[in-house]
């Protein structure tokens, strides 16, 4: 594990150079995190900026008993979550649409580029997007998600199921035929 102590000390002392270095080190990965939680790149950029400002102003509170990347990632997630909360997007959304189960192949998804998957996630309603990210990508349990988002576990599970259904449908809509055609062509 890389030792960030010296650079952290310099950042706390206000060194712009050190702050730039730390930013350069983590910005691409954290931008990836922000993109997953945002509805588009612009919102992700805002969250990344606010997140890093928070990182640098609270760096003195970082205890060196965990990974710095994990700590920064947690800040990015919190900032994203807070942004959605402020926009009142978190609670009103209650998707009542019933999505029929969609037949899809895992192979289809495996062939979709990460960028395209990212776009699919960004198209999810905010709460579904959050639950999906927290459960699937971050590996949080429904209980943790329920506490984090102040919802019940049942709601969390339901939201996750809906998110999956939407994603499957979108995968099928956007990539199913294309990939099938590709498969047929190559066959």
């Amino acid at each position, binding site marked *: 594990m890389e030792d960030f102590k010296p650079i952290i000390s310099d950042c706390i002392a206000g060194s712009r150079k050190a702050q730039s270095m730390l930013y350069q080190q983590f910005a691409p990965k954290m931008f990836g995190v922000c993109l997953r939680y945002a509805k588009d790149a612009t919102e992700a*950029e805002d969250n*990344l*900026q606010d997140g890093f400002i928070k990182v*640098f102003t609270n760096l003195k509170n970082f205890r060196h008993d965990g990974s710095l990347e994990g700590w920064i990632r947690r800040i990015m997630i919190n900032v994203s979550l807070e942004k959605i909360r402020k926009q009142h997007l978190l609670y009103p959304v209650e998707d009542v649409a019933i999505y029929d189960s969609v037949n899809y192949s*895992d192979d289809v998804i495996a062939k979709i580029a990460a960028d395209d*998957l990212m776009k699919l996630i960004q198209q999810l309603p905010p709460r579904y997007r959050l639950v999906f990210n927290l459960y699937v*990508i971050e590996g949080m349990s429904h209980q943790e998600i329920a506490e984090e988002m102040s919802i019940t576990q049942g709601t969390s599970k339901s939201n996750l199921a809906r998110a999956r259904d939407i*994603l499957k449908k979108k995968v099928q809509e956007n990539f199913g035929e294309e990939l099938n055609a590709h498969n047929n062509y190559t066959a």
Partner: protein
Amino acid sequence: MKKDKNLDELFRSKLLNYEQEPPAYILDHVLNGVAGEHRKRKIVFWRMAGVAAALLLAFVAGWQLNVNDGKTLNQPLVANQPIVQEPAAETKIVAEQNESAKELGSEELSLAVVAESEKMGEKTSISLAGKIVKHNEPTLVAANEESTLLQPLKGLFRLLTSDTESGNSLQVRKYDPIAAESTVKSIDQQIMEQNQQLMLAQNETAKKSRWLVGAQVSPAYNVSRSSHTKAYASNMLNASSNPVDLGGGISVEYKKGKRWSLQSGVYYSGMGQSSGNTSNSNQNVANAPVSGSDHGKEYFNTNVNIDAWTSKMAINSTAGVIEFSSVPDGIVLGTNLEDKTMTSSAVVVSDARFIQNFEYIEIPLYVRYTLIDSKFDVEMMGGFSSNVLVGNQTFMESNTGKSLVGSTQDMETMNYSGTLGIGLKYGLSKRLYLNVEPRVKYYLNSLNGNSAVSYKPYTVGVFTGLSYEF
């Protein structure tokens, strides 16, 4: 279920470590944002520190004053009043001294003091000190209540304390006639100093006041200063005289230091001009006999435009185009006459004069500097004002009387002016002042928005009024 797991795993594997280079400008924003946060925190820190320091200072000052008060009360300080007012036997020294002072010279006085002192001995001195202490106490309590007088009194008491070194010094001096005399003299001097300091303190207290509110009125004489395009000026009324208008308002002044102050307020200012027949007259028209007119040679030769649809008259003046709401009574219009150049115009045949009145509400910001600070203050002032047009009327004055006929077109609703003046301030009492202030106000922009007209008059006025300091 398993399918869901697969789906999750596929998303997770592709997106968990997903990286994308963010736009370069975000780094600058982040660094600037962090610097801004630091500045904010510093400001908050210094504000808190400032408040804490002020509180600490106030606490220490209050505590210190209380401590000093206690010390002062215990000291047998000497003052003239209790000695003179106490007719008891112990204070005969002073009583006799006062009487003797009127009749005898200082030598005799000292002898009397010595004689009495020898008779009464040491006891006299001690009891005298005791009496004085008793009579000083209420004075000090009063001083405590009068917070504004506290500081100079404290200074005086410190002075007295260092000089007299409590009542013991008095005991030593009673055996020395010269010392006794000098003590009495020094007491008088100290009382005089006390009075002086009290007076200074009162003056100082008065001078520490920070705000003045006042009301002024002023006759204002307006001097027209305008320029026009050649075409416009070729048919324009001549501003021949300027009526004296009345202005005034309420002012608020904040004193910043001993000499500088800022002043604002709300003023009303009227401005007008009277226009008559053009000076650069069209000779053809001026000399032309007007058919059917019984006005003789008293008629206008300034071209008048008449709107074909509304029949409204308009005439050029130095301040702008006067638009008539209707053709006024008492004037006669003639068209064309013998002047072929005036085909589109009419001629007003009347002996009338047009008075254009403009009313402004002025919100000034002046800086004042006190040149002479005495009973009769002399100040210089200057600054800028925003002037909002609230009245725009044109009257016609003829032998039939004065009537409202219209207004001036294109007058700007907001104007800016500069003001310079000299203020004379006489203190009627401690807080009430009489102000007389000649001012010159000049407009920085043209009062009329017509591109053919540049109308920037200046106003000379003597503002007179009262102001109250608090």
